[in-house]
Each structure stands twice: as structure tokens, then as C-alpha cells.
């Protein structure tokens, strides 16, 4: 079975441009996370979904970041407009329902804003 799939793997954009990241979680996983990871730091939670509901988006910079998880499966994270400081790796993870304890991560999207 495929793991968590993220695309693109790499993205280079100019500042002030929009960018979007896509995540396909493991089939049947109701919980989905988006993280941001800077070099040498641990992943920082941006948003958590339970099915299609964003149950925690307190760390999402809502002035420029947005996310959606239509139909409770795939998810998209968008930045508009991007800033130089947004350069980082964006990780998606999914987790099964109440019976699941292990989260599975994708390989991430490395964003470079120039």
C-alpha cells in the first residue's frame, strides 16, 4: 500500500507568488496534519484535520496560508503571497482513527522562495 504522497517534491518560486502543496493520505486515515520544518528544527504543526474538519488551525498564519481537505481525503496547503521566510520543508502526515496511534509522514515538499 502506498504511504502518504506529497507533491511536488521541490518547488522554487519568486516572492509574492502563490504556491500550493498537495497531500494524499493513507487510505482510511481520518486524521491529517500539515507541518512546516526549518533546517535543523523539529516539525512545527500548522493544521490538523479530522475528516474534513480543521480541528486545530491555531498555528496557521491565516493572512497568507490556507488549507482545505475536501471530502475528508486529499488536502491542499496554499501560500499567497509567499515570502522569503516561507522557505522550508512542508510535511503532511496522516493517522488512523481512534484505534490508530502511529502517524505516517510523506517525504515533504521543499519550498524555496527567491
Amino acid at each position, binding site marked *: 500500500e502506498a504511504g*502518504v504522497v506529497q507533491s511536488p517534491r521541490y518547488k522554487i518560486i519568486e516572492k509574492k507568488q502563490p504556491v500550493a502543496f498537495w497531500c494524499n493520505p493513507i487510505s482510511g486515515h481520518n*486524521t491529517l496534519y500539515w507541518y512546516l520544518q526549518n533546517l535543523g528544527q523539529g516539525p512545527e504543526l500548522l493544521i490538523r484535520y479530522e475528516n474534513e474538519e480543521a480541528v486545530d488551525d491555531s498555528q496557521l498564519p491565516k493572512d497568507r496560508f490556507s488549507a482545505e481537505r475536501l471530502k475528508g481525503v486529499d488536502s491542499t496547503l496554499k501560500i499567497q503571497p509567499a515570502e522569503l521566510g516561507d522557505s522550508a520543508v512542508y510535511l503532511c502526515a496522516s493517522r488512523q482513527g481512534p484505534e490508530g496511534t502511529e502517524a505516517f509522514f510523506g517525504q515533504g515538499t521543499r519550498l524555496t522562495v527567491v
Partner: protein
Amino acid sequence: LAKTTQPISMDSYEGQEVNITCSHNNIATNDYITWYQQFPSQGPRFIIQGYKTKVTNEVASLFIPADRKSSTLSLPRVSLSDTAVYYCLVGGAGSQGNLIFGKGTKLSVKP
């Protein structure tokens, strides 16, 4: 969520046993302790999870004392491929709760 404290880095040699200790003084009664491993250019990967005493799987062992204020991840006979960052997380099991990562411990295994 309980805050965790880990050493920033550790060095070891191939074949040695490595123990990484994590402090979580404010752990809640229903919190589990989970460890993840991360290689460069990859997402974190689940290693082991426990609630109390000792848990062992094919990769590692997790030792948790009775007061649960700390935990120790034990990697037996490490190899070069165990060089990675190891994260200790504390929180509720299942789909409840967020996964909050600290800075982790960077383990370097030398030949």
C-alpha cells in the same frame, strides 16, 4: 501538552548500544510517550510508543520509570544507518490530540 527535553546531540560507534533520555515532567495521566526517527530529506518515521514500564519491538526498546517523568529510548548495536534525528513526543494516543515535536536529538554513529 507536556513539554519534552532531550539532548541536542549524541555520538556513538557502530555496534554500541545507544540510550537517549527524554524528560517530560508535566506528563498527563492519559499521555503516551512516542519516539520518531527522521533521516535527512525524509519525513519522521514512528519507532516505538509506550505508556509505562518497558516496551520492545524489532527496532528499539523504550524504558519508562514508574513516575513517567522521563523515558529512555534504547537502540541496540547501532549501525551507520541509525544516524538520524530522534524525537520524543508526549500526548494522547489515537486520533485525539496533536503531535508536537521538539528539536530532537541528532545521533551520529561513527565507524
